[in-house]
């Protein structure tokens, strides 16, 4: 996961949307969206509730039918894209639990299936699952039931599940929703390492928050149209005050052992 990604031919973008339209029921949610994410970029998709940001992301991964326009993943039309292991997806969830108890390890392992043949796990697969858990600082919780976790830890498990296939592209839908400050810092750090290793990231966010320094470009949606595509909007209010550098000292004791030496 740490080896740098080869600077592949600079041509094709990792994600490309052209004139994408989508309806939910009869209501148009996306009305002709253009969006390009190049290799190594970190792009935030912003917008109010109902602006279409989740629908845009879910159309990219084929969970929402598109009525017009073209979507390409790694240069392949989405309908013909089969190389799912290159993509790590973090859905918008408040919990990683299902109707039956499951351990952190079991849930994260399901993210590795795209790299296995017929679901048979080899040594390398177990190692990748362990590495993904280490990245989010949950390696010591591998045998714990997911139902015993806090909201932030659920999110860390969901991100580890996406990282288990060692993807080149991470797509995250509101990864910071309902996450405590300690976990927010861990998640920001995890993302920083992924980006440093050459990953491409597209995330849906409600606000930039602690991820702000990582973000190369922000795309703001309103009513299913792209309103802004460029540098992240300037912070306003308290966040814009000089000296505000997103240090949250009261959240430190939990996250400290993981961050040491990695913050630079």
């Amino acid at each position: 996961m740490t080896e740098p990604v080869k600077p592949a031919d600079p041509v094709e973008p990792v994600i490309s949307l052209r004139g994408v339209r989508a309806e939910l029921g009869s209501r148009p949610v996306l009305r002709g969206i253009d969006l390009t994410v190049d290799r190594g970029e970190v792009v935030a998709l912003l917008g109010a509730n109902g602006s279409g940001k989740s629908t845009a992301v879910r159309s990219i991964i084929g969970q929402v039918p598109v009525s017009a326009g073209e979507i390409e993943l790694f240069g392949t039309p989405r309908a013909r894209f089969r190389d799912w292991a290159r993509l790590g997806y973090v859905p918008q969830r408040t919990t990683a639990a299902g109707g039956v108890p499951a351990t952190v390890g079991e849930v994260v392992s399901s993210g590795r299936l795209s790299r296995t043949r017929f679901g048979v796990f080899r040594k390398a697969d177990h190692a990748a699952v362990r590495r993904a858990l280490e990245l989010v600082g949950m390696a010591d919780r591998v045998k714990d039931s997911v139902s015993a976790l806090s909201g932030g830890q659920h999110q860390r498990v969901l991100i580890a599940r996406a990282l288990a296939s060692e993807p080149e592209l991470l797509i995250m839908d509101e990864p910071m929703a309902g996450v405590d400050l300690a976990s927010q810092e861990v998640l920001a750090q995890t993302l920083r390492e992924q980006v440093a290793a050459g990953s491409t990231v597209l995330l849906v966010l409600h606000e930039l928050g602690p991820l702000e320094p990582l973000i190369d470009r922000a795309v703001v949606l309103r009513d299913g149209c792209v309103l802004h595509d460029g540098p992240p909007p300037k912070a306003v209010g308290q966040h814009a005050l000089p000296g505000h550098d997103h240090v949250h000292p009261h959240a430190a004791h939990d996250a400290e052992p993981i961050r040491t030496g990695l913050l630079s």
Partner: protein
Amino acid sequence: MDFLNYDFMQRALLAAVLVGITAPAVGIYLVQRRQALMGDGIGHVAMTGVGLGFLLSWSPVWMATLVSVLGAVLMELIRWYGRTRGDIALAMLFYGGMAGGVMFINLAPNGSNANLTSYLFGSLSTVSESDVTAIILLAAFVVLVTLGLRRQLFAVSQDEEFARVTGLPVRALNLLTAITAAVTVTVAMRVVGLLLVSALMVVPVAAAQQLTRSFAATFAIAVAIGITVTIGGTVTSYYQDVPPGATIVLLTIGAFIALTALATPLARRRARALAAAQPSGDPAECAIPASRDAAGKVGV
């Protein structure tokens, strides 16, 4: 152990063990995807199969398998396409299936509601040689699917959307789950009966959950409970002349209550062990809300 000398009891016990294995093995995936009552629906649909079996003088077990598999596939299709009116369509399927069963068996020359009763509530003495062959074949299929594809079925049942993005053939796996559940219903039909099948799919899983933290352990304990109650219920019904299906289901619920009672001290012990494993600096966590509470009272 004199009951082992009777052929019919040997067949009944073999069928009971296979039901004890297969019903929780499928049920765990249904519970995981929060479709615990799907087995009940399939049981209703299978009645039409039993009725048709009598009407056409075909094996009721194979006919019920065929019809309940068709019904399960139809339910899965309704789930995909008929989102808004899905529950009503399912209700019509369930009750149509039940009504069809009653109708066909009454039209059949040698059928009566008495025949149907043995399928509805299970009957040990009527498990025939050919029934056992069918049950063994069907149970082998169920075990092969639920164990062989456990990682895939786990992923799909845990988070269907995520499973699709990992490239798993989610529709095929959902159909396979539905078909496997339908097959299990017909495996269990002769022993616990169509109306009680669902209990054996769901309750052992619920009972096992009281003790477990992992999916793998839940699976193993649920199957162990399934085998214990089906053997226990079968033997009890031999000695006491009580209906086997009802005995098995009541035993399963008894197991659930017993394990729930057992789980409370276990959970307390686990919490203590967890607290002991935490670094010593942590007690501050409990102190903060307490002091806040005190501060709040002062304020008021």
